[in-house]
């Protein structure tokens, strides 16, 4: 579907308000008689809590309460574990995350007590005064060490295996036997933190008159926190309202109820005060769930001619100290994409979740997709190098061809659409690949280390297959959309307005988009997994169909003619045979007054769309870089990425997503790494030690282009795009680095490619 508005590079409607400082983020919300909560966190990665002495804190003027696990309602001690369905043979240990540590702390930063005070400053002063009596226990930070006899993180899980799964398709044994060679690889993909500009936070308020608990929280959607809060507190869903204000970024890290939210809610109910928690950056770094953290052993069976025959992976996921509802899902997604864009007839993946004394992991932009792409793309390049085949050639030979869709992979994913060879060819053309290779040859002749790297990546999108939307007409005739998923930077007010403008035959300025309040609109799912436009946009079309239909019924009533003699045209109802029609204003007013029309339905459309499968976006990426061996600095000069996101609703916003996620992809391989001591003690405690790049730090030229093949799964034909850069770019940069270092015989480098690591690999320490 492309109309006059879908496909246009409309500017973001939300920017003026946000850029001018008129946004209202969580901490901007003001509440009368608001109290503030701050947390006492464990300094040790593993310890028995022998006692908590809060007497000095309680004696501080302005302190209202100090609570520990024992003060929580008995049902409200743990976050829910099973929030997302997993395959039946996916085994998961019963190690949910406590809301406050109960008797034992299992990572440094875990909240042990909460202090409620009249101001944030007093709360922090009192946190300083709470004495924790901790008895240190043996602990482990490295996931491989945890599995190799490391001290148990949970006494009841002696081997530290907190989840396990095995997925196999095709004759794996046979294919490896038939392979001319087996390429081996071992990868360590470090933990990353999402680092949203706005950290987490919430305000909880309880109205005993209505028996209604309201949580305003900085979250990706209101629906998941609401369900989980109702579940934790044992309340009816109707007695919990969640409102999401403007959100300053999430990148996967605000996808549910945080334990701190539940504490704020408990304190609000206990004290009758509204309770605010806005975390500090140090807290975010310590206690917000982190992403990636995967150790992978890979084997790729290849024929002498470069055919990819079989893949075997063992994925060890660094789960952390507890399982959140979505901790294991990352491994599931990585498994489903393990064979990447390639036709590999046999594949086998073993997933092992390792408990470690570190903050739990969960989704971070890409959430399993970058890990899968990194491994397969590095393996394909290793195969090319070992076989002496050009990296372009080995890809051309093995990519799923354009005519093969829908294509079922050996591991059971069904790719709906795409043209991977076409993407690769266009990326090579756009990057002037032959010239890049000539430049490399010249550089090598001068003794410089220059590399070119490729990646072809697949992005599954649309997970949790359904979404809702509602639509109605306001008194002034504007169309109000209430999508089930909410915005936290994606630009829903812009793209949904474009979709609705086409569907209703009006200009986008006649469309208003509102979301984030669980009391408005329908129960929905939310914004994650690059799903909003594809699933939510389709639900919107259904809702608007129904709305137009009801408009016709109302107009027939008002004009006193049969509905069949009317049609919807350019935003109003008009009679087929000509003559005056009925405007949207008139319809809205009539429906509001409903004086003589009691049997007509409300002027409102609702839609629920189920995506029959997943929509698979894809991208091909060419990275060019040069290494300075004397300092170890890696300068990525250019990224060229060609994306298939299906129908592009707004090219400007889509390009923004590609550029933004490419920058996060660059950060992931060049700068960022959460690091810990062997015992799990965090080493990266702030942005002084965790290197997040800012705008001036990214000097790489990023060239983007779209080459759509519409998805057959939805009426819009869209697919995800928001994660593409962070999936393809790290793999392409890693391949380029390997290519640059090839003359030195360097066989493998794990990210991040920090100056010191590269200096060492280029022989710096031997000079």
């Amino acid at each position: 579907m492309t109309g006059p508005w879908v496909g246009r590079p409309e500017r973001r409607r939300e920017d003026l308000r946000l850029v001018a400082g008129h946004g209202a983020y969580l901490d901007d919300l003001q509440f009368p008689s608001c109290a503030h909560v701050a947390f006492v966190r464990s300094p040790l990665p593993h310890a028995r809590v022998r006692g908590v002495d809060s007497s000095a804190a309680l004696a501080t003027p302005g302190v209202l309460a100090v609570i520990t696990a024992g003060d929580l309602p008995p049902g409200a001690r743990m976050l829910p574990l099973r929030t997302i369905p997993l395959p039946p043979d996916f085994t998961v240990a019963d190690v949910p995350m406590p809301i406050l540590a109960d008797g034992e702390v299992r990572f440094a930063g875990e909240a042990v007590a909460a202090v409620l005070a009249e101001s944030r400053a007093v709360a922090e002063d009192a946190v300083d005064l709470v004495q924790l009596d901790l008895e240190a226990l043996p602990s482990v930070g490295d996931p491989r060490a945890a599995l190799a006899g490391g001290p148990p993180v949970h006494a009841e899980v002696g081997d530290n295996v907190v989840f396990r799964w095995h997925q196999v398709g095709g004759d794996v044994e046979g294919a490896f036997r038939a392979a001319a060679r087996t390429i081996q690889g071992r990868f360590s993909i470090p933990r990353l933190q999402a680092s949203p500009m706005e950290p987490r936070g919430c305000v909880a308020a309880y109205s005993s008159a209505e028996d209604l608990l309201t949580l305003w929280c900085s979250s990706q959607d209101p629906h998941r926190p609401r369900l989980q809060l109702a579940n934790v507190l044992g309340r009816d869903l109707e007695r919990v309202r969640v409102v999401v204000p403007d959100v300053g970024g999430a990148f996967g890290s605000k996808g549910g109820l945080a334990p701190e939210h539940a504490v704020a809610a408990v304190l609000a109910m206990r004290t009758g005060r509204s309770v605010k928690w806005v975390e500090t950056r140090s807290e975010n770094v310590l206690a917000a769930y982190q992403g990636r953290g995967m150790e992978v052993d890979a084997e790729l069976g290849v024929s002498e001619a470069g055919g990819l025959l079989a893949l075997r992976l063992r994925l060890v996921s660094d789960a952390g100290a507890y399982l959140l509802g979505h901790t294991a899902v990352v491994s599931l997604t990585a498994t489903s994409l393990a064979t990447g864009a390639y036709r590999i007839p046999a594949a086998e993946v073993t997933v092992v979740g390792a408990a470690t004394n570190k903050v739990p992991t969960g989704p971070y932009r890409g959430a399993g997709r970058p890990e899968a792409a990194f491994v397969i793309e590095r393996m394909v390049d290793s195969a090319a190098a070992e076989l002496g085949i050009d990296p372009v050639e080995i890809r051309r030979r093995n990519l799923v061809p354009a005519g093969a869709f829908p294509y079922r992979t050996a591991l059971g994913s069904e790719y709906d659409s795409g043209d991977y060879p076409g993407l690769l060819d266009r990326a090579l053309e756009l990057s002037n690949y032959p010239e890049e290779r000539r430049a490399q040859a010249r550089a090598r002749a001068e003794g410089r280390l220059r590399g070119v790297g490729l990646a072809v990546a697949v992005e599954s999108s649309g997970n949790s297959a359904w979404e809702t939307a509602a639509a109605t007409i306001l008194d002034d005739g504007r169309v109000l959309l209430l999508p089930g998923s909410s915005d936290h930077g994606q630009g829903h007010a812009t793209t949904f307005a474009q979709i609705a403008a086409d569907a209703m035959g009006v200009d986008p300025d006649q469309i208003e988009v509102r979301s984030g309040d669980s009391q408005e609109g329908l129960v929905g799912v939310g914004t994650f997994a690059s799903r909003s436009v594809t699933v939510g946009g389709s639900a919107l079309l259904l809702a608007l169909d129904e709305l137009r239909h009801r408009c016709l019924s109302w107009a027939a009533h008002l004009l006193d003619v049969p509905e069949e003699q009317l049609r919807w045209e350019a935003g109003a109802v008009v009679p087929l045979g000509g003559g005056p029609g009925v405007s949207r204003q008139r319809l809205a007013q009539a429906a509001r007054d409903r004086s003589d029309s009691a049997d007509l339905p409300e002027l409102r459309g609702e839609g629920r769309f189920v995506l029959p499968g997943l929509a698979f976006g894809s991208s091909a990426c060419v990275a060019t870089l040069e290494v300075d061996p004397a300092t170890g600095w890696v300068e990525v000069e250019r990224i060229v990425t060609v994306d298939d996101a299906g129908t592009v609703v707004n090219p400007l916003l889509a390009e923004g997503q590609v550029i933004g996620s490419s920058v996060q992809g660059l950060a992931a391989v060049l700068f960022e790494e959460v690091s810990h001591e062997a015992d799990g003690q965090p080493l990266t405690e702030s942005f002084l030690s965790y290197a997040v790049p800012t705008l001036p730090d990214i000097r790489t030229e990023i060239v983007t282009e779209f080459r759509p093949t519409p998805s057959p799964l939805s009426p819009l034909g869209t697919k995800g795009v928001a994660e593409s850069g962070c999936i393809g770019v790290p793999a392409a940069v890693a391949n380029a680095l390997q290519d640059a270092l090839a003359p030195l015989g360097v066989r493998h480098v794990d990210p991040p490619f920090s100056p010191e690591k590269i200096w060492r690999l280029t022989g710096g320490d031997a000079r």
Partner: protein
Amino acid sequence: MQTPAPFEYEHASSVDEALALLERHGPETRLVAGGHSLLPMMKLRLARPERLVDVNDLTDLAYVRREGDQIAIGALTRHAQLASSPLLASLYPIFQDAERVIADPVVRNRGTIGGSLCQGDPAEDLSAVVATLGGSLKIRSRTGERVVAARDFYLGPYETQVGPAEMVTEVVIPIRPGAGSAYEKVERRPGDWAIAAVGCFLTVSGGVIADCGIGLAAVGAPGLPALEAEAALRGRPAGEEAYAAAAQMAAAHCRPQTDQRGPAEYKRDLVAELTRRALRRAAARVMAGGA
């Protein structure tokens, strides 16, 4: 933590008033200039001064000007002013080199040269720049003013000559006609604190190095001068051979520590490479006419 422990706050409207407040309230009182070093430490509660004396009103201490054969820089001059000063750009481009890689615009709009030097962080870039150029600092107290050479200013990491009731008012840099200067820094990402950094200046007469200075950051004491390397360069023909020798000496002289930014041997190797590069760039600027 985002809130400092409780403290008293006053602001001074003159140097004399600031000094009087420091004297009256004793050693637990601290000056606050840009606050970009002090406030983060207070928020993390690594620093707990009882009282702050805000000197941001002392706008007459924000200047870069020529005074005879010296450049005088007021202690309240912000990074951003240093970066955009035409005088510094023409006489000592080392300032611009360094400013381009110090922190980010937000920090550069607030942070001051006085605060940077008095913080005494071994990785502070301006300490290395001022030490390179053989600058000095004017330190005022109620009883008078003394001038301390930048190279004698540091007693150790985070420790300076400034007493509890004293204040730095000005930084003075000698002008050397025809000098070339440069700053080279390697960081994990641009704008981060240095893994290692090297500043240098050169004057060349008849192809021979007449005068020079080399200052190191993040590899030992704040603003560490590489004295042996300087001595070895003076009187030698400018060129790769001299630079290589100086690079080796600077590397041997520095005292890096292994930390999250890298192991000591890496930093030492960087010092050699960056010394070479800085000398080359400074020499090129000499040839280009002293800028």
